[in-house]
């Protein structure tokens, strides 16, 4: 057991447990807080995978910006607690859980059906810097410059769209 495996087990457990807690809490604000914890655990996992840039962006964009937006909306709209998440015995809920279990088993089956993973070749170990900000930045501004500009345009459109939609009256 080296440090890497211990960290993986710890972070993976946090991610799995917080995701389950998130969908079973009655209060939406507590769900949001568990989702933030989940995002932090994922950022740690990205670091373990040598994806430093993505890890930092995960904390800034997801745990920072997006979840603050969610919490603000939850604060503005007073929503009642859902008391019947787990006690409600509607058949449709059993059906939902059945579908989910099926999806999960299908994914696991496909993961193990594929070629099993092997040890890294020296060539791949040399590529350990894949996730550094220099590498990502170089790729982003050379090979992916048009998608990058398109993403900027999309954000502009989304900003205008959100303001128009949330305005008092739209004619």
């Amino acid at each position, binding site marked *: 057991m080296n440090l*890497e*495996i211990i960290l*993986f087990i710890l972070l*993976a457990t946090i991610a*799995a447990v917080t*995701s*389950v807690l*998130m*969908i079973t809490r009655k209060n*939406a604000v507590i769900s*949001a807080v568990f*989702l933030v914890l*989940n995002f932090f655990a*994922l950022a740690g996992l*990205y670091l373990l*995978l*040598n*994806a430093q840039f*993505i890890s930092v962006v995960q904390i800034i*964009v*997801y745990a920072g*910006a*997006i979840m603050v*937006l*969610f919490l603000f*909306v939850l604060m*503005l*709209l007073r*929503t009642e607690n*859902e008391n019947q*998440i787990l006690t409600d015995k509607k058949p449709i*809920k059993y059906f939902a859980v059945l*579908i989910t*279990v099926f*999806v*999960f088993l299908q*994914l696991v089956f496909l*993961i*193990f059906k594929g070629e099993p*993973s092997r040890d890294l070749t020296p060539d*791949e170990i*040399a*590529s*350990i810097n*894949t*996730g550094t900000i220099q*590498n*990502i930045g170089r*790729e982003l501004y050379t090979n*992916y410059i048009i*998608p990058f500009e398109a*993403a900027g345009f*999309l*954000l502009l459109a*989304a900003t205008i*769209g*959100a*303001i128009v*939609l*949330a305005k008092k009256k739209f004619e």
Partner: protein
Amino acid sequence: MSSIPMEYYLILSAFMFAVGVTGVLIRRNAIVVFMCIELMLNAANLTLVTFSSYMGNPAGQIFVFFVMTVAAAEAAVGLAIIIAIFRNKLTVNIDEINIFKW
């Protein structure tokens, strides 16, 4: 990185995706349903980053960057829509928002 098999990350990702699907199906609060969609997006991101770093190819991480951009745009517009609906119906319970049902 080499000491942990890739499958572990993929199974964690599959589990988080399945939990997100359950959340979308069983929750009735529109904002929580939205958060479950974010959870599923993150599960997909974890898969992309895993493949990207085990294969030494940055394309997957750049794709994750774009997914995050789209998720931010989606969250802004989606929450604005929820606010607009709340203003009209005074609820965010998706059982009561049935104006298009017949």
